[in-house]
């Protein structure tokens, strides 16, 4: 589709880098903000690990602070880092370049999305400085405790948290409408849906899910704000708190959990699907082989997206909801393992008989597959209602979701950053530092989370400030916790290597040339690298094939770019599954 000439070309430093409407600048703004706030969450996680590994040794981490660290770490990582970085960062940068558009279709809205996101981050950070500090209700913010005095930050902290979430959702909606519209309406000539890279498919479906799921969080945030500030009783039954009978009456704490997880479970896939897409493209590019079963991969993304809206109550097996729900949600939850397994098989079959270049992005992509597999498999313990009973709310859960939704998406993000950094800056990141970063992060993550599963099987409950005098917990568990803490501190510290590499390579990295990885997809075929404003110079590119023509028999190069008019190629034939 032709795109009208741009009328928002930047004229000054301010419009170029600050109030920019260019998707590439907005993507970098999103990415830097998300990494900055993620660094806060990383420090918080190391502080909480200090308490768990060496209880009482650090006097400033009292119980109040501990719960505040736990809560802020979780919320920042899930929402303000992962969601923002995948959609606002990767989505913004890659969608227009990968579909052959000059920018997002609503550039002003796109800019507004970033500034709203920044506002949400600032409001959230502001909660560290209000009396009573940030909320310590756990990232799930379950009422009644989230707004009652027994919980740290039940004054200003929880209010700012809810307000910040509401602002974030406004930002995500502005961005999301933009991404979906751009993918559907601004593809260049020849770029059919079945020629989109899987990265775009992952981000597209994740964005549609975000548009459908975030409203549930939005209303629950507003309703809880009303309960907290206006005395309504949406989530508040009659309670006697700290010896005082409160005026609440008739509300349901479980209603909040349903709303929260109706958002919360799709949220897992809002993070996972872009990671799936990115990893698919990294594996294909660096194995010099087309992604195996492209159509199946697309359909798996769509099916996972749909199914993820009917599995939410597997987070609530022991919540006290009607126990009959358990049958339904256990079944849907285990069914979702099938399309997810297909994705894993196809990554493996892409590696099989490939020409595997063990570049830094490829290392991270393989690291993603390994950690995602273990995280997905442990999900089968928790999704199957009866095996969830002894494991719910133990360290098994912590280990599971950190593997599947912490480590593996972060590895995909790192892989993506190392891969597309030359596109953004025209320079390569340092290879040695990148490998060092990979090895410490990958091995360290296993050292942290693999043993943690066993503490969960033992029955150690999570969100405990200390484990004094619990007879069923052997002293060896404390030693293991100390080991995990040391591993976590090492992994945390080595992320500085990444930050250093990220910053220094922008000025000192080796010039990358226009297409350092020999990638076939459209974003590497821009006339300039990094691409200028409007991306494509005077004429939009024309696409003649899918983005996976690697090692095509009969060609002299080992890849054919999407713009190539060569009659050769292995594009998937349109068949009954063409949308």
């Amino acid at each position, binding site marked *: 589709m032709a795109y009208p000439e741009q009328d928002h070309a930047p004229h000054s430093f301010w419009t170029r880098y600050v109030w920019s409407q260019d998707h590439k600048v907005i993507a970098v703004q999103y990415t830097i903000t998300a990494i900055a706030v993620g660094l806060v969450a990383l420090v918080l996680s190391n502080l909480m690990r200090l308490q768990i590994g060496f209880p009482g040794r650090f006097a400033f981490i009292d119980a109040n602070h501990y719960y505040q660290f736990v809560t802020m770490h979780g919320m920042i990582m899930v929402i303000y880092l992962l969601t923002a970085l995948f959609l606002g960062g990767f989505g913004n940068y890659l969608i227009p370049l990968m579909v052959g558009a000059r920018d997002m279709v609503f550039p002003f809205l796109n800019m507004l999305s970033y500034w709203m996101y920044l506002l949400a981050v600032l409001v959230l950070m502001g909660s560290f400085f209000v009396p009573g500090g940030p909320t310590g209700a756990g990232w799930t913010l379950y009422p009644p405790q989230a707004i009652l005095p027994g919980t740290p930050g039940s004054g200003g902290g929880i209010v700012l948290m809810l307000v910040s979430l509401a602002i974030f959702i406004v930002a995500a909606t502005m961005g999301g409408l933009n991404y979906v519209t751009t993918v559907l309406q601004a593809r260049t000539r020849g770029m059919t849906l079945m020629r989109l890279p899987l990265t775009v498919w992952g981000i597209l479906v994740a964005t549609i899910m975000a548009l459908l799921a975030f409203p549930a969080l939005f209303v629950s945030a507003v309703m809880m704000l009303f309960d907290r500030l206006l005395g309504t009783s949406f989530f508040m039954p009659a309670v006697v708190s700290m010896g005082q009978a409160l005026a609440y009456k008739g509300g349901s704490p479980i209603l909040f959990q349903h709303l929260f997880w109706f958002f919360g479970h799709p949220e897992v896939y809002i993070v996972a699907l872009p990671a799936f897409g990115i990893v698919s493209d990294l594996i294909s590019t660096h194995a010099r082989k087309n992604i195996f079963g492209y159509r199946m991969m697309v359909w798996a993304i769509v099916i996972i997206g749909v199914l993820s809206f009917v599995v939410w109550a597997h987070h609530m097996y022991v919540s006290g909801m009607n126990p009959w729900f358990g049958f339904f949600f256990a079944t849907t939850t285990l069914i979702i393992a099938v399309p997810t397994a297909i994705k894993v098989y196809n990554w493996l079959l892409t590696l099989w008989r490939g020409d595997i270049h*063990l570049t830094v992005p490829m290392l991270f992509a393989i690291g993603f597959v*390994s950690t995602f597999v273990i995280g997905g498999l442990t999900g089968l313990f928790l999704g199957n209602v009866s*095996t969830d009973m002894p494991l719910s709310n133990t360290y098994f859960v912590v280990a599971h979701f950190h593997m599947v939704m912490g480590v593996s998406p972060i590895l995909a993000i790192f892989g993506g950053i190392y891969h597309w950094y030359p596109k953004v800056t025209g320079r390569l990141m340092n290879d040695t530092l990148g490998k060092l970063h990979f090895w410490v992060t990958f091995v360290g993550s296993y050292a942290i989370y693999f043993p943690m599963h066993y503490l969960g099987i033992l029955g150690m409950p999570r969100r405990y400030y200390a484990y004094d005098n619990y007879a069923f917990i052997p002293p060896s568990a404390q030693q293991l916790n100390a080991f995990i803490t040391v591993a976590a501190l090492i992994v945390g510290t080595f992320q500085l290597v990444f930050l250093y590499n990220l910053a220094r390579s922008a000025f000192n990295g080796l010039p990358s040339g226009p297409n350092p990885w020999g990638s076939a997809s459209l974003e590497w075929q821009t006339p300039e690298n990094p691409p200028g404003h409007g991306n494509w110079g005077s004429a939009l590119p024309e696409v003649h094939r899918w983005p996976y023509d690697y090692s095509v028999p009969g060609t002299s190069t080992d890849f054919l770019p999407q713009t190539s008019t060569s009659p050769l190629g292995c594009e998937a034939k349109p068949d009954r599954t063409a949308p």
Partner: protein
Amino acid sequence: MALAIALIALVISAVLFHVFSPWWYTPLASNWALIDTTLSITLLITGAVFIAVNIFIAWCIVRFRQRDGHRATVQQDNRKLEHWLIGLTALGIAAMLAPGLFVYADLIHAPPKAAVIEAIGQQWQWRFRLPGPDGQLGSTDVRFISPTNPFGLNPADPRGQDDILINAPEVHLPVNQPVKILLRSQDVLHDFFVQPFRTRMNMVPGMVTSFWLTPTRTGRYEILCAQLCGVGHFNMRGYVVVDDEAAYQVWLDKQRVTLASATVNTRPLAPPISGTSPVNALASQGQSLAQSKGCVACHSPTTAAGVGPGWQGLYGKHERLAGGASALVDDAYLREAITSPNSKRVEGFQPVMPKIELNDQEVNALIAYIKSLSAKPAATTARQ
């Protein structure tokens, strides 16, 4: 290549860790052996997949890594292979789901003959209620909760008049008798979790939830709160003692104190917290109260600060109060701090202490206990 070696090493260490891990289930103490069986099936299937995937990746890296003259073999798709993989995956899923659902059907259907008891959660303590001779629990409501009626019994309900009220965090169960545990909370979410029982349920204010089990092994087990319930969550502990029939009857006979009597049962717990030795009987009573009233959830008997100040070395100390004033911790101060909490709060702590109804004698006992913790010539008292 390094990655292939790392992945193989990863698989080997994972298997070794599993075999030699001292961290595993606590021995089962209920009828839910089938949960453990389902878990073992799941572990077997998922473990095999974990090993297979990582080994396959390692093999691909060794076999298909970049070498001079090597080129990838293009294969777009393989429908037959994919259908096989989907079929096998579905089979594996069914092998885990089917036993899981069978067990679940049992989990949610308590046998009609199961005895019924009630556990009540409150930040950050437990109490229990057993039906009296009429075999029925009376109705309750939070609006009836008062210092003299901590269980919120409905005064108009005759079925509740004979209920056995246990205002202490320890309950007994007879071995090999199915029991359905009704769960209630008066403030926030809690969770009744006894790991050796395997099954469990949240306690939700505004409604009654439940789960059931048959205890199969006598012993004393810890009850954990496993749903974040505020800053004292990690210390909200109770005990469930599984007795043989004779011992259970002895215990039950001791509990027959009903709503009619002025004070509810505050039975001392055994064993007392280690590392403390109350100097006299009053202090000893105070120690029991500190546990049964839930004080220890926030106040440690050491110098360590928890949600509230630790008690060792507290007596006789000058504390800075929130607002800037300071106070000497003596009998008068402690009495005020206990009877009107948060009025003179020590700096650095949140105003979250609940007012717990205590008579003068009980307050004296608590003060004596706190005093006793500072009486010893501990090095910490020198801090003042």
